[in-house]
């Protein structure tokens, strides 16, 4: 038993109730119960952690304080002195972000006959895409239909999703799966080719396709391999820190920052695809996150500064099952596939408190309720609180060996710290996972800025106020592919005006007029996890916030 004594006693209770729980069903929430649960316990309802924006297209609308700090900040670039006449790269379509959405866009833009260039913050493929373990949704089984998929997405999102985007998502889904199949993605299949599919939270049909629990990794490495085969170039370690607009307001490139040589580079393009992902590394409300190191909302910041409108930025998705023990993997993802395969969530007494495949917002709220008001969380030696995810049930339900075959990444993750998830439950607590909203887009991935297209987590609208599992890998590919096509079409017709940073200058003026007196600069680019005492020394003894 790897668990310290205080936790081990609770594990015994979990084991004691397992036989009984295997036979019992737990009721789903009614719409009224779900609403009440969310309003009382979901972090989105802690109003003091949000504030209305002072400037920009969404002025007056509330966003998390951590994001507002970056939106109400000044550029790294001085728009008055920066020399845009010295162009370092010139291309038809510039794709900012080298994750799944950006790489998909690069492939389709190139197929459409344009020159493409990817600029990305870290290595090509270092993105949340590779961390998506559980699967990708598509209604492709005989008992399923895109219409059912639509209904599940709308219900999961609180019925506020932009319908046209949801239709694009669900109707393109089978085409995306076929595209991946033809690129050689190894889906979990029966010998005759039938996809092995399971449920995710909020699905009414088993439509979660997977590649063991390395689904995003398998998709990302395949797309990147294909892009390399096709000679697509990626500028690694060169994140975008500002967009360029021309006289007519069209997006015509970006300024990149080389993280190693510390140079600013000017890229001229006829159109731009923004696929920079989300904001997990802002640690909204102090939550740990499942997200990649580079998930710092850069895309939101530079697009908003350029005048792009955002939607649903007052809602953040907390994944119900982030690791709460051991300390070393705090907040890391425990895939929803664990619940999809049948594992229960239980409290310190080994009792269930929520139907496990409710939507993520509801399950997270229920765990928070159990650990606060109800007082039946399990406390770790370092003071974290969580509930048990009873993973050993999966083998009991589906046969010995299922966990090792279906969840090798999870087994390995915990084995590194001496925990055998086939025999022992794991402790979990909600963790910041996904940016539900983002830059408003249309079905063709276009935005309110001509020549600027968005795809993936940086975009908003398709998932409403809560995304379902397996719809993010789908989203990045559906809209990544669409963005590539649209950006290519735009590039073919575009005439290049003179690039300017006038929007940055005007944004700065708005900030000053709004009385925002700050030395904050953005985008953040990377979080700083160095210890406070080192930061103080770096600044010559001046304490930092």
């Amino acid at each position: 038993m790897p668990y310290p004594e205080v936790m081990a006693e609770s594990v015994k209770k979990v084991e004691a109730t397992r036989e009984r729980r295997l036979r019992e069903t737990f009721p789903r929430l009614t719409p009224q119960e779900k609403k009440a649960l969310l309003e009382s316990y979901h972090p989105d309802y802690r109003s003091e952690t949000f504030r209305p924006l002072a400037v920009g297209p969404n002025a007056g609308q509330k966003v998390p304080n951590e994001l507002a700090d970056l939106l109400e900040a000044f550029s790294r670039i001085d728009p008055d002195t920066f020399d845009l006449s010295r162009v370092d790269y010139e291309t038809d379509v510039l794709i900012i972000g080298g994750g799944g959405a950006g790489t998909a866009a690069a492939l389709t833009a190139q197929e459409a006959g344009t020159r493409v260039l990817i600029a990305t913050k870290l290595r090509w493929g270092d993105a949340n895409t590779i961390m998506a373990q559980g699967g990708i949704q598509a209604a492709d089984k005989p008992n399923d239909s895109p219409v059912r998929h639509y209904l599940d997405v709308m219900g999961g999102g609180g019925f506020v999703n932009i319908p046209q985007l949801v239709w694009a998502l669900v109707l393109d889904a089978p085409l995306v799966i076929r595209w991946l199949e033809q690129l050689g993605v190894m889906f979990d299949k029966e010998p005759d080719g039938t996809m092995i599919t399971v449920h995710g939270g909020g699905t009414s049909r088993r439509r979660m396709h997977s590649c063991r629990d390395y689904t995003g990794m398998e998709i990302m490495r395949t797309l990147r391999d294909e892009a390399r085969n096709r000679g697509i170039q990626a500028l690694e370690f060169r994140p975008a820190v500002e967009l360029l607009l021309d006289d007519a307001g069209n997006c015509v490139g970006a300024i990149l920052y080389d993280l190693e040589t510390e140079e600013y580079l000017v890229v001229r393009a006829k159109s731009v695809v923004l696929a920079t992902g989300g904001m997990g590394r802002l640690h909204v409300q102090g939550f740990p996150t499942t997200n990649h190191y580079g998930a710092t909302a850069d895309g939101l910041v530079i697009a908003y500064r350029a005048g792009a409108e955002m939607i649903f930025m007052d809602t953040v998705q907390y994944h119900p099952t982030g690791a709460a023990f051991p300390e070393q993997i705090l907040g890391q993802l425990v895939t929803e596939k664990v619940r999809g395969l049948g594992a229960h969530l239980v409290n310190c007494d080994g009792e269930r408190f929520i139907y496990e495949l409710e939507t993520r917002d509801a399950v997270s709220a229920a765990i928070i309720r159990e650990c606060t008001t109800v007082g039946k969380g399990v406390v770790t030696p370092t003071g974290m609180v969580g509930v048990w995810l009873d993973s050993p049930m999966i083998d009991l339900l589906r046969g010995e060996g299922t966990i090792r075959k279906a969840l090798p990444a999870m087994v390995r993750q915990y084995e590194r710290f001496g925990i055998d998830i086939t025999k022992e439950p794991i402790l979990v607590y909600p963790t910041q996972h996904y940016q539900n909203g983002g830059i408003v887009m249309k079905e063709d991935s276009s935005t309110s800025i001509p020549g600027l297209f968005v795809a993936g987590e940086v975009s908003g609208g398709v998932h409403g106020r809560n995304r379902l599992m397996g719809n993010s890998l789908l989203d990045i590919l559906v809209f990544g592919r669409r963005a590539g096509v649209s950006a290519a079409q735009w590039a073919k017709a575009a005439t290049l005006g003179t690039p300017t940073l006038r929007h940055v200058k005007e944004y700065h003026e708005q900030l000053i007029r709004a009385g925002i007196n700050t030395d904050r600069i953005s985008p953040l680019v990377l979080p700083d996890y160095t210890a406070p005492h080192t930061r103080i020394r770096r600044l010559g003894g001046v304490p930092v916030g």
Partner: protein
Amino acid sequence: MSVAIQREVEQVDVFIMGKRYQVPKGLTILKALEYAGYRLVRGVGCRAGFCGACATVYRKEGDFRLRVGLACQTVIEDRMYLTQIPFYPAVKKTYDIEQLRPDADTILRLYPEVTRCLQCNTCRKVCPQDLDVMRYIAAAARGDIAKAADLSFDCLQCGLCTSRCPAEISHYNVATLARRLYGRHLAPPAPHLTARIRELTEGQFDKEVAQMRALSPDQLQTLYAERDIEPEELVPVSKKDED
């Protein structure tokens, strides 16, 4: 959430690229580097054991063994000597996956160096995923694409195998080729997917889509609340061959 528990944290010594730092016991190598004041650009990625960016090399004091791991998944020990591998060059051949045949000739033509394997098994010993790297290279060399794809599936492409291989094989790129050959040419396409795409192309859902589009918000919510949920079918999820 956390409840406040204040406690003295024991400090240990680590040597980062030879420089000594005191850091709290129990940190991962990645967090120890950061605690010591290093703002990482290279050698860091997902921070969760999935991306392979943080391949790390270390020795324990007085131990002849050179150890490797992922910095985000390896806990520090007292008097550990460590560094990150910022980048390691590997060979990546280009090809048109459509045109390739799933056999040994394909792999040997693109990556002939797989035949230089000395069977030293270092690749397997250094793999932080505990994959049987040497065996998948052997499978690839003899044209057993399915085996190479299966054995290499959990690869994170961290490149530690490639950094240590005396035969200078770029294992993880061979593995990618094997998996793509398998996924494209050996695994049968999903028949239900073919059927669904045909139905979509023929417009079979157009009427249902139009009906759904015409619903009022109330009707949509009622339909959602009343929708039936497919029961879970409790069978083993994966039926992969064992050897």
